[in-house]
Every structure is written in structure tokens, then in C-alpha cells.
């Protein structure tokens, strides 16, 4: 047998590999051990441990920070599925704390108030993998260059309005198709336009996809919303406020899980969409002042 010498942890392949295992699944925001159990029982592939869901962060205003470690630890104890948690953009010490707590993925998230308006966390410094938000291909590739092992389109968190999630997913897929169709000599200018490293632009050109898994986030509230994002080409969905701000979280969570698996089967989506109770109250994006739009955070 082989000795220890070939055994390595924290490699890019085990970081991106966990994201591969989450594909086709639903990652749910939770603020307590009880909610985490409901999410796990409904078939969530992972939970995001938070102190407040985005809708409440939006309502509360002020500075939003990493959750209290107690909340994160309670969620870790409560469930056997992977646990994610959010740090502020650029706040590498919050990230160090989350790694020390044993979270399985860190979301460097625009839902929290950014700690650095120029730099994101250097994610290569960590053994724990990171997921980051993006609105377009350039932003996705910049995050990947910094070491993100998974990306998610941002949408507009805490709104229950899927329109921004759709916009961002369509932008990413359109730009991938554009890059894939370019001639080799055009890739240098494309890298400049996208403000992304040439090597990653070349990779997208050669492979016709992103080098990491891409989920959809920010505004998904119904089973049909989840299936819409899957049909638009995402690998899985994050549901934030949409579940625990609704009338019957357990039932809605299970329905969104089933719609994500059977996203091409309208009969099943119709069946699971019945009698889910009150959906979360949505917000029109035009009613949110530009300065309060979370998607604008990150650079």
C-alpha cells in the first residue's frame, strides 16, 4: 500500500470537487439549528449559517458582519450536510475565523457590508474553499483568479424577485458563448474588455464553460423560480430569504428541492407548486435606491 507521502489536503481539486457534489441541489439560508434541521430534512445539499437572512439584513440596515460563531457552531452541530457561512468582502480575518470554526465553504458575500472597497480575500491562502458572487463573466473570472472554487450569480438578495438573478445568469452565459466563438487572436482584447486574466479567458474559450461550478442566487422564492434558473444553465440554486420568510418553510423547501432536480419536467413542477402557502413578499428592484443594491458590492 501507499504511505502518507501521496496524501494531500486543501488542493484545488478537493475544493472545486465539493462544489461538483452540490450540483443539482439547493443550498438554504438558515439562522438557527432548528431551521438547519428543517432544511436538511427537506433535502438541502448544504446550509448557509447566518445571523439574519438577507431580507432582514436589508430591513435592519447598518453594517452587516459575519455571524456570531455560536450560531455557526450550533448549525454545524445540528446537521450532517456541509455548512457554509459568509464573511464580508475583503475581510480575511472573518474568513480565518470561519475556517477555524470548521465551516465547509466560505461565501465572501455582498450580502454583508464590504470591509475592503478594492481587494477581495486572497482565497489561495486558505485550505477551506470559497464561493463568490458575480454579475458577469469578467467578475466571475476575477474571483476565480483570486482562488474562488465556486461562483454564484448575485441576483438581488432579500427581494424574492428573480429578475436580477435572470439578468446575471443570462449575462454570464451570453458572454461565455461570445468568448467561445472568438478567434484566438481576439482573446487578448476580450481579456482586456472583461477585465479578467487572459489564461482564464483562454480556458473559457477552449472549454465553452466556466472552470468552476456556478449556482444561481438572489431572489429565488418559488419552485418555478428554481427551475427557471436551472433551465437558464446554472448548476444549482441558493435560496436565501425565500424559504424561511414564507408561510410553510418545510413544504416550500422540499418543493424547491424537487423542482431543482426535475427542472425540465413541468408536470412535476406543477404538482409540487400546489398549496405552498404564502410566498415571501417581493420587492421591485426599482423601489430599491441604487446605494442599497447589494449586487453593486464587489469589484
Amino acid at each position, binding site marked *: 500500500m501507499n504511505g502518507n507521502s501521496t496524501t494531500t489536503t486543501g488542493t484545488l481539486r478537493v475544493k472545486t470537487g465539493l462544489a461538483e457534489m452540490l450540483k443539482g441541489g439547493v443550498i438554504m439560508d438558515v439562522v438557527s439549528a432548528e431551521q438547519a434541521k428543517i432544511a436538511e430534512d427537506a*433535502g438541502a445539499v448544504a446550509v448557509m449559517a447566518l445571523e439574519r437572512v438577507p431580507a432582514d439584513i436589508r430591513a435592519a440596515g447598518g453594517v452587516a458582519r459575519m455571524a456570531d460563531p455560536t450560531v455557526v457552531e450550533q448549525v454545524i452541530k445540528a446537521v450532517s450536510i456541509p455548512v457554509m457561512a459568509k464573511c464580508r468582502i475583503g475581510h480575511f480575518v472573518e474568513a480565518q475565523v470561519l475556517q477555524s470554526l470548521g465551516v465547509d465553504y466560505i461565501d465572501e458575500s455582498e450580502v454583508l457590508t464590504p470591509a475592503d472597497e478594492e481587494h477581495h480575500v486572497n482565497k489561495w491562502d486558505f485550505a477551506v474553499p470559497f464561493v463568490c458572487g458575480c454579475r458577469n463573466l469578467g467578475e466571475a473570472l476575477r474571483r476565480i483568479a483570486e482562488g474562488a472554487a465556486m461562483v454564484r450569480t448575485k441576483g438581488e438578495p432579500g427581494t424574492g424577485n428573480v429578475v436580477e438573478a435572470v439578468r446575471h445568469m443570462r449575462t454570464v452565459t451570453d458572454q461565455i458563448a461570445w468568448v467561445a466563438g472568438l478567434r484566438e487572436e481576439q482573446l487578448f482584447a476580450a481579456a482586456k474588455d472583461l477585465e479578467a486574466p487572459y489564461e482564464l479567458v483562454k480556458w473559457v474559450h477552449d472549454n465553452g464553460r466556466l472552470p468552476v461550478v456556478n449556482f444561481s442566487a438572489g431572489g429565488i422564492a418559488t419552485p418555478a423560480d428554481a427551475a427557471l434558473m436551472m433551465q437558464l444553465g446554472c448548476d444549482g440554486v441558493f435560496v436565501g430569504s425565500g424559504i424561511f420568510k414564507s408561510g410553510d418553510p418545510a413544504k416550500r423547501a422540499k418543493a424547491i428541492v424537487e423542482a431543482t432536480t426535475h427542472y425540465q419536467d413541468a408536470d412535476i413542477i406543477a404538482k409540487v407548486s400546489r398549496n405552498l402557502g404564502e410566498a415571501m413578499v417581493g420587492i421591485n428592484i426599482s423601489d430599491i435606491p441604487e446605494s442599497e443594491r447589494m449586487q453593486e458590492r464587489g469589484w
Partner: protein
Amino acid sequence: MRIGVLALQGAFREHMMTFEALGATSVAVRLPEQLNDVSGLVIPGGESTAISKLMRTYGFYDAIRQQHGAGMAVWGTCAGAILMARTILDALPDQEPLGVMDIDVRRNAYGRQIDSFEADLDFRGLSDGTFRGVFIRAPWIERTGEGVDVLAEHEGRVVAARQRTLLVTTFHPELTGDPRVHRFFLDEVVGA
């Protein structure tokens, strides 16, 4: 040859691409009826809790047991290996195994994501050297019954085993780009 890949959740696309590259036809299986015309089934890596709940809701437990009884080979990777076991150790209270293979498997045996690792494995039955095992929040096989052949171990733990038309790997060959375990499944396990 037609191989079904259970596509409820997880890394099913990578399995399908590898089989296609080897010249087999692969089918994404989302409903039990689709098992009727495949010679082998892969239960991929993913979250075993999420996959088992969807399997129950859509009637996969009996369908897989029945088709396996009628000759369908089954290969489970990671979460799939957990679900094929006779007993799941550290399972959720209501998590039911398929119980088709005489092994006991422990979930998340190595710890959390930070403990996920890669290692070279001696995989019995594969030529051309060691196989790079990618272990992600992996289980291990804690007991193997009679008639179960151990195919690979890592630091004293069984990580790959075979019982006639059943194959389990606790690691992810589909993430390596190395098709030798997929080739082994097609050549040696399906129709054995």
C-alpha cells in the same frame, strides 16, 4: 452498452461524459421507469441525504433493488457507496440504505471539508500504475461481508470493493479525467 447515471443530484454529468468518451451510451436517470433498459447504473457522489430523500419520493428504492435482482450492475461513488450499503453508520435517523451490498459504510468518516484529500491508490484489477483517489467529505467502508472483494485501501481503510455485479468507491474517479475505473466497470462488472 447503455449505462444509467442517477441524476437526482450530484456529479452525474462527469460520469456521463466519461462513459461517452469510452464509447458507451449514458442516460441521465430521473425517474424509475428509465432503469428498464440499462445494463448498469451509477449512483454518483452528491449529498447522500438529499439523494436518498429524492429516491424515496420518486420510488427508486424498490426499482433499483428489483432491476439489480434482474441483472443490472450498480456502481456507487461516495454518496452512492453509502446508499448501497447494508448499514449506514452515522446516518440520519430516517436515512434508509438500499442494502444491496454486504458492507457497512460510515458517512463523513474523515471529518469536514478541510479534511478532504487526494492520494495515490493501488487499485486491484487496474493496470498502468496507481490511481489518484479524490476523497471529498468521504465515507469509508468499515465492514465487508463474505463474497466482497477489497479492491483498494487507504491507510488501512477499505475505499473500493466489489461484490459480483456491485462496485463501490468512496472516492471520485469521475473528477480525475482518468477513465480506468469506468472502463473496469464496463468490462468487468457489468454483465459479470
